[in-house]
Structure formats: structure tokens, C-alpha cells
């Protein structure tokens, strides 16, 4: 800036006067919600950080060299929907991960061959995650997909059966993708490759633009079409990025940090250690990121695993932050499916706020209206929320 000592302070004074006059003009009603659409720079930045426009292409998956191979994804998609991959011939991945229900189901706990111990996770946006399952006991998406196949209460088969099924029904596409005949390969390799194909498919399940994203875009554009959200939804958004501190964990364009936190969810006496037992399983699996069947470079890749804080004491009872995109369309909620509505979830966060559990259950002093506004805002994170309002 060029120095102009004489008169500059007078000019600034005039400018300020003109500016405050404009503010008064544009803000004639000093009612309770007069400042509803006046976002601070910090709030604006946080709103943009949640917008789908900030979502980069999925990060590479170094442990799975087929992760972005369309033929692998096509094979994975076919197996994902194939109920022959189960003990009774009736359970596929799609049984619990229902496309018509946000890729999860409407049950408190997944129901495959038997009753699973936790709620079916929504799998949209998994390509952006570092840890898999509610407790993060898998360190790659492909190794995650192998868990349910061999879980007696999910698909209830084993890797030998997987190899037989691949040979019987997918021999040709398998050979095409993996450039080898599944008959010649060790059973663990066929099993791992099946997981890699499934992962390639799941990586293609990406979030859709929602009314919130349109609002975030409008804030950045000249149109300033802030009517995209109702007043209640706008207040909910302000609480989300501010007082209610939801954004601490539900951050970034996927509304999750992919980390593990205490949520204060009632467990009805069923003690679930969550993340607390995951570190042992991470080390025990033969399908790990640093294991025999991984394609990762053990020197260059996997710093998030190498430098993971494995202090069980800190993480016992924590669960992975789920995405909030589409959440309002797919109750029930939490790792144990204990809440049937978002209102119950929000009520519980208020009830446990400030307890001695940890910082993450501190959510400010929320009023009844605040909870209603937050719930209204969460409704704007569903893709069919576009239709509701337009």
C-alpha cells in the first residue's frame, strides 16, 4: 500500500461511515434472526470445507492395484449382488447394503445368516476412508470385504468356497482382471483378489449432490440464493459448524473424519470395546496393508498405519464417525442401531454433553429448538432433499 499520510484517515472515516450506512440499509429488521444470513469468515470457510465441491477424486489405494480398474469393479459389482456367496444361497453383500436404502439396511443390527453384532455400515464414500468397520479393524477396503464373507452370521462361507464359486461362475472375468487362472492360485490369493474386486466396486459408490451443497455453492457465487435452505435449516447449519461442535468429528465433504470417538451411546449392558480390540486384529490378519497379499510399497505407503497411536486405553469404547450424507434417509442410528430417529440421536448427544467421558461428547448448551434446527439441517444432506424443497 502506498503511504498517503495526509487525508487518508479522513478517507477511511468516510468509507467506514458509508459502510455502516449500507449495513443498516441491508439489515432493516433487527429481529432475532436478522443476522441469519451473515456468516463470519470462519463459518464460511467451514461451510465450504463440508461442500461436495471440495471433494477430491478418491485417493489411490496402494494396497490394491486393481482399485481403479473398471473390469475389476464390474467383477466386484457382480459378486456384490451374488447371493450364491453365502451358506444358504440367500445372502449377498447387497442384502444388508441395500442400494434403495443408502447402502445400509433398516435394522438395528445386520441380518445375514444370523444376527450381526453391530449395525450395517453405510458404504457410500468408503474410497475416502483409512479404516474399515465400526472399530477400524481392517486397514484396507479390500481386506474389509473379506470379513463378512467368512463371518458365520453374515455370509457364512469360507475362502475355499469363495475360490470354488469364483471358479464356477467368474472364471473368465477373473482371469481377465488378474491375468491368471484362479485354479492355479493359492486359495488365499483368490480370496484376496475377490476382496480387491469387491473393493474396486465399492470405491465407485460416491455421494450425490444435496441441497446443502447447492447452498454452499450459492454462498460462493454472486447469486447469494440463500433461500435454498429454510431458516431452521440455516440455523441448524450455524449450530453444526459452531456451538454444537458437530463439525469436530463430522468434518470434510464426507461429514466424517474417519476417526474413532466416544459418542455416549447407551449400550443396554452389552459391552462393546469398539476400537479397543482393533489393534490386535490389525496385527493378526494375513490380509493387512503390510501383508503378503497387499500391493503396497511397505517403505513408502501406509504412514497412517505405521504411526497409528495404538493406545488401547484411550480408544476402548470408541467407534468410527459415520458419514452424515444421506443419514436422515436411513435410520436406525449408531453402531448398535439403538436410536430410531435423528431426534433421539441429537437428544442423547445433549444428554451426555459435558459428561466426564471425553471432550468429544461436549456439544454446548443446546435448547430444544437447537435440536430441531440441527435435525432440519441434517435433512439437507440427503440427495432426495433436492426434490423436497424445489
Amino acid at each position, binding site marked *: 500500500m502506498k503511504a498517503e499520510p495526509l487525508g487518508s484517515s479522513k478517507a477511511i472515516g468516510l468509507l467506514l461511515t458509508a459502510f455502516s450506512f449500507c449495513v443498516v440499509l441491508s439489515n432493516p429488521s433487527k429481529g432475532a434472526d436478522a443476522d441469519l444470513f451473515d456468516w463470519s*469468515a*470462519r463459518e*464460511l*470457510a*467451514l461451510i*465450504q*470445507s463440508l461442500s461436495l465441491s*471440495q471433494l477430491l477424486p478418491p485417493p489411490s489405494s496402494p494396497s490394491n492395484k486393481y482399485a481403479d480398474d473398471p473390469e475389476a469393479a464390474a467383477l466386484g459389482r457382480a459378486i456384490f449382488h451374488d447371493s450364491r456367496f453365502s451358506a444358504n444361497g440367500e445372502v449377498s453383500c447387497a442384502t444388508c447394503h441395500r442400494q434403495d436404502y443408502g447402502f445400509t439396511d433398516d435394522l438395528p443390527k445386520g441380518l445375514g445368516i444370523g444376527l450381526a453384532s453391530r449395525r450395517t455400515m453405510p458404504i457410500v464414500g468408503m474410497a475416502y476412508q*483409512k479404516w474399515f468397520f465400526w472399530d477400524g479393524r481392517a486397514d484396507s477396503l479390500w481386506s474389509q470385504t473379506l470379513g463378512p464373507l467368512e463371518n458365520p452370521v453374515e455370509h457364512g462361507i469360507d475362502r475355499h468356497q469363495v475360490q470354488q464359486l469364483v471358479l464356477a461362475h467368474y472364471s473368465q472375468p477373473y482371469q481377465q482382471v488378474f491375468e491368471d487362472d484362479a485354479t492355479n492360485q493359492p486359495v488365499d490369493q483368490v480370496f484376496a483378489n475377490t476382496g480387491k474386486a469387491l473393493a474396486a466396486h465399492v470405491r465407485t459408490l460416491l455421494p450425490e449432490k444435496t441441497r446443502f451443497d447447492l447452498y454452499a455453492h450459492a454462498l*460462493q*457465487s454472486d447469486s447469494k440464493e440463500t433461500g435454498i435452505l429454510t431458516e431452521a435449516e440455516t440455523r441448524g447449519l450455524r449450530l453444526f459448524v459452531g456451538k454444537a461442535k458437530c*463439525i*469436530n*468429528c463430522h*468434518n*470434510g465433504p464426507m461429514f466424517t*473424519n*474417519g*476417526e*474413532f*470417538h*466416544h459418542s455416549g451411546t447407551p449400550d443396554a449392558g452389552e459391552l462393546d470395546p469398539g*476400537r479397543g480390540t482393533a489393534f490386535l486384529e490389525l496385527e493378526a490378519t494375513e490380509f493387512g496393508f503390510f501383508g503378503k497379499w497387499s500391493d503396497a510399497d511397505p517403505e513408502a505407503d501406509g*504412514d*497412517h498405519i*505405521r*504411526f*497409528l*497411536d495404538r*493406545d488401547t486405553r*484411550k*480408544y476402548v469404547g*470408541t467407534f468410527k464417525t459415520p458419514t452424515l450424507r444421506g443419514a436422515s434417509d436411513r435410520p436406525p442410528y449408531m453402531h448398535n442401531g439403538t436410536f430410531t430417529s435423528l431426534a433421539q440421536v441429537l437428544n442423547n448427544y445433549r444428554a451426555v454433553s459435558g459428561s466426564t*467421558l*471425553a*471432550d*468429544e461428547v461436549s456439544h454446548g448448551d443446546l435448547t430444544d429448538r437447537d435440536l430441531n434446527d440441527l435435525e432440519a439441517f441434517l435433512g439437507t444432506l440427503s440427495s432426495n432433499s433436492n426434490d423436497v424443497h424445489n
Partner: protein
Amino acid sequence: MHWLLLVLLSIFALPDTAGAMDAIGKVRRERPADLDASTTVATRYGTLQASYETDFPELPLNSVHTWRLSLQDKNGLPVVGADIDLTADMPEHLHGMTTTPLIQESDTPGLYLVRGMNFHMPGYWEVTLDISGAGSRHLLRFNLIVGESQRAPEGRKADES
């Protein structure tokens, strides 16, 4: 025991490397309005200066990344062989990172690589360096604001002139 040592010990008895739940005994601190988030800091009399760089234009949220940490003495000479203890915490939330970074001295004198940094929440973080081996023991602290810089849309940057 010398009183200064007691004070130092009491400071370092409180934070461990921090994670989901380690709030016991710590005091919550709000973010100061005029937070100095410089990437270069020095001890009061300039005996030791530290600065960091990453591969990103802004500190990344939810991304495990590496810091290039440079140490200089008061004459601007690189400090080699320093023993560095690094902790990162959110003073408002009373927790640290979900990783335990590793500090390696690089081939470039005075340059250290900190692998495994990860900020999993937006907001105010403090990265504290407890450095010994540079003659005496030094404490240095970086203040960080993560995830709050608004990327201006194309063509709407503020005019600097």
C-alpha cells in the same frame, strides 16, 4: 529439587501424546483472538529457531502427512543431532493426534522429517517441541489453525494493490 525443574516436570507430566480420551488433569484453553500462527518460531532470546513446511498450501485435515522441520541457532547455523520430542494438542478440546509421529534427521543439516502428522479436527492446534541436544533444553510452540482457510473461487481474489 530445583523449582524450575519442578515446573518443567509438572508441565510435561500432563500431556501424553494424546488421542481420543486423555483429558484428565488438563485445562481447557480457548483460542486467543490474535493467535500467531507463524510457521517460524524462536525462543525468547533467539537462541533456537524452528520452522516447518509441508507439501500442501494449507495444513491438511484428516490426512497423514510429513513436516519438514528446520532448526537454526542464533547465528542462523543449522542445529544437527537435536533430540526432539513433539506433541500436538487441541487446547480447546483437550486431546491430541491419533498418530504418534516419528522424527528423523535428514541428510540436510538442520532439517528433520516428522512423519505421521495428522489433524483430525478443524480448529486450533498447538504443536510443542521439546528440544534437547542443542546445548540446553528448549521449548518451542507452533500455533496452527487447521481447516478454516476459505479457498476463494477463481477470479474473486482480493485485490492486493
